[in-house]
């Protein structure tokens, strides 16, 4: 391994010296202008005298902080508990429909948060709307995939002989779980808990639809302060406060994960159920998981087809005309928002694939210096979308950088959110390219630059398609940053959905569910197509 890196380096040293700076310049400028500058503007707002005191003494802020924290902890604990059984079954057993179940568990995680929020508005009884439980239940649904994937991945390679030995020595299944399995899984459990906590602590779309005004999370409160009260300074203080909390959690969790790291050589392939008990409960867990994952989405679609207690296509038929009464329109045109969203997603995808692709190539080609760009491009990932949107809104408001009306500001924000994912998807592929392929190309007479183009750039094409799908899905569902950057009359789908579901009338609500159904299908289709295309490429690259 180390040897191959050495040879890699030797081969790359012959690449033209301008290559890395040329690749890195666009990503670096994008990061500086659209991320670092807004962040500094936010910080500058916060350090103004009196700003912090004013924001923290505003009524209800302490309660918002407390609610955000406890709902995130509760959501995390519950997600771990709920995800445990499906993680085990999917990791350890082979049964018909296993791959489909794995996909069904993963789908909610890829869905826009407003779609998940809408699905639970459709599913949960009226009395749950605006409650903490509604928020927590949606969070569990959304994040079970994290536990199944992270904990499941470790469980799959857990040596079976250890548990078998413990059983032979007379340990009960509970004792085996407690003394053997859990300690071995601890690093994965920590990792999953951290990811779920971060997601639920910064929850916006689902929290806004389900928690309502009564139970706002920090993100919802930041948006309310800025876009309803016009208290931008207060919103900025809360944003920075949230950033600090996130930084502390990430640092603390990284420390714990290192300490809890366990090494073992994995031998444990999924097998068929053997004992009679297994044959009974493995299918039960699998079926229950499938039902739990698909029901909210099915109910969402069915609610868009119901009006006044009867089945009706009215909401779908009137989707293009936003009138609620003659002459009075809702101010959102659902179909126009569909077109807007797809256009913006196309631009955001091109931007993030271009920037992310260049950045990934630069990072790999530059070795040590690439780390700076690598870490820099990951920063937006640790920043909440609401913070990104708020920062952009208050930064780009003065000429000659007054871009609030520019059509590309929203896709730029989306690209900022999506680019880290593109980079993450490409880096492993690029790093796995053996140096001898490049050497072979060079032997065949290619110049170093040509060899690099022929091997590295071509290799990256297929995973780039997968990354493009991911970026498109992120842009289609992006809600937090868009809330700040959206302009009246040009709403995106998630904004239109939130506006429609903010109404109590039957028709607008059914229209909201219909539009959420469209967004659900569109996102799922984009992700599936991209992952199929990407997997085909990935298999030959691995």
């Amino acid at each position, binding site marked *: 391994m180390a040897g191959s890196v050495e040879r890699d380096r030797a081969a790359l040293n012959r690449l033209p010296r301008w290559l890395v700076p040329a690749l890195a310049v666009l990503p670096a400028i994008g990061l500086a202008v659209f991320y670092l500058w807004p962040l500094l503007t936010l910080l500058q707002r916060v350090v103004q005298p009196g700003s912090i005191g004013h924001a923290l003494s*505003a*009524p*209800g802020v302490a*309660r918002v902080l407390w609610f955000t924290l406890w709902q995130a902890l509760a959501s995390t604990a519950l997600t771990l508990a709920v995800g445990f059984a499906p993680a085990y079954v999917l990791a350890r057993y082979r049964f018909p429909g296993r791959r489909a179940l794995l996909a069904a568990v993963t789908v909610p995680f890829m869905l826009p948060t407003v779609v998940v929020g809408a699905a639970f508005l459709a599913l949960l009884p009226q009395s749950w709307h605006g409650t903490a439980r509604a928020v927590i239940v949606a969070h569990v649904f959304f994040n079970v995939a994290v536990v199944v994937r992270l904990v499941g991945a470790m469980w799959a390679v857990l040596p079976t002989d250890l548990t078998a030995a413990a059983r032979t020595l007379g340990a009960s299944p509970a004792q085996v779980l407690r003394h053997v399995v859990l300690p071995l899984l601890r690093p994965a459990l920590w990792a999953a808990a951290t990811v779920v906590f971060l997601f639920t602590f910064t929850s916006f779309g689902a929290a806004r639809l389900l928690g*309502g*005004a*009564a139970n706002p999370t920090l993100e919802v409160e930041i948006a*309310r302060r*800025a*876009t*309803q*009260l*016009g*208290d*931008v300074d207060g919103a900025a203080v809360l944003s920075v406060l949230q950033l600090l909390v996130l930084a502390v959690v990430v640092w603390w969790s990284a420390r714990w994960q290192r300490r809890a790291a366990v090494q073992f050589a994995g031998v444990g392939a999924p097998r068929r159920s053997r004992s009679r008990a297994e044959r009974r409960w493995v299918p039960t867990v699998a079926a229950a998981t499938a039902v739990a994952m698909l029901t909210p989405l099915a109910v969402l679609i069915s609610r868009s087809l119901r009006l006044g207690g009867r089945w009706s296509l009215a909401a779908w038929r009137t989707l293009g005309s936003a*009138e*609620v*009464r*003659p*002459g*009075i*329109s*809702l*101010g*959102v*045109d659902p179909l*126009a928002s569909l077109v*807007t969203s797809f*256009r913006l997603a*196309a*631009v955001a995808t091109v931007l993030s694939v271009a920037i992310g692709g260049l950045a990934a190539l630069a990072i790999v080609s530059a070795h040590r210096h690439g780390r700076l760009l690598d870490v820099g491009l990951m920063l937006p990932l640790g920043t909440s979308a609401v913070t990104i949107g708020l920062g952009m*809104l208050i930064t780009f*408001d003065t000429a000659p950088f*007054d871009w*609030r*009306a*520019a*059509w590309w500001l929203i896709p730029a924000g989306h690209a900022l959110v999506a680019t880290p994912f593109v980079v993450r998807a490409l880096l492993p592929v690029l790093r796995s390219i053996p140096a001898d392929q490049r050497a072979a190309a060079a032997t065949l007479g290619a110049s170093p630059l040509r060899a690099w183009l022929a091997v590295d750039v071509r290799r990256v094409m297929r995973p780039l398609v997968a990354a493009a799908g991911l970026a498109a899905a992120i842009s289609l569902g992006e809600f937090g940053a868009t809330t700040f950057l959206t*302009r*009246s*009359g*040009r709403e995106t789908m998630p904004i239109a959905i939130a*506006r429609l579901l*903010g*109404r*109590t*009338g*039957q028709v607008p609500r059914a229209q909201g569910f219909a539009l959420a159904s469209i967004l659900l299908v569109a996102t799922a289709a984009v992700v599936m197509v991209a992952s199929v295309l990407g997997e085909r490429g990935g298999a030959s690259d691995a």
Partner: protein
Amino acid sequence: MAAAVLLAACGNDDASNGSTTPGTTGGTTAPAAITMVVYDSFPTADTPLNEALAEFTADTGIAVRLVTAGDAGTMVTKAALTAGNPEGDVMWGVDNTLLSAATDGGVFQSAPTPVDFGDVCENNDIASFADHGIAPPATLADLLLPQYAGLLVVENPATSSPGLAFLLATVAYAGEDGWQQYWRDLRDNGVEVADSWDVAYYERFSGAAGGEGDKPLVVSYGSSPPAEVVFADPPRTDAPTGVAAGTCFRQTEYAGVLRGTKHPAEAQQLVQFLVGERFQRELPLTLFVYPVNTDVQLPDVFTEFAVVPDDPFEIVPATIAANREQWQDQWNEIVLR
């Protein structure tokens, strides 16, 4: 190609006519088209107001596109956040409760002009109270009585201007130190909150024709009953809704040219048209507010059924400006949390 379409569709706020087809932009040589930002309940098509605007376009060659920006509170906050680079050229409907937020935020190019006024009052569904054999409430104090528990829907003062006006009525009534207790009592009496007047009146209130609500009490306007008579189907000669004259707050709406417009002359021309007789005479029976233009003769159905309170609650603009944000915040904490 895609980028060009995008540019045409999104790059121009103000270079299109019609509210749903922003794709057909002319070049710079086309006659000016301007955008008027309005609140939710302003009609965007098919009413005499829109006909009047069409006449303006026919006379001047200036096309007017209407953009709906949420309820008045949301609209003004957004305008403050986009001040200098506005979402349109003219804004309709900033009222005296929000005026300071708009002017402090540098929203307007010059002082906005009053365009209409009305009174925000609690309205009631007459038939519903008759069915239950109880008299509807007449004053703010009445709303706290147990027989009205769970019957009232109000608008959120952070997002809605009638909501803010009603909050201010309670401040004027109970005092700057007493309104908090009034709202605690109102909350305990089961008040419901909607985000906009449109939702409260048409989706929660039981007295609105064509509405689907079940609440017989709503915060609306003293001039809402004429609307119920005008739009009644089948026609009727009496109003199905009543007004509690002891709950009213006087509201004046303004329109003005937004700072940062690329068409200041055309925008100014539109504002002048908005206060002219041709447009003002359509206000009573479309927006159900009083025109400021004294040349306009009020329609009979309006004078007959609108309630004008003798002594509406009032708070001086400076006091509103100094306390608005804090009161909205405190209200949120008391009622919604």
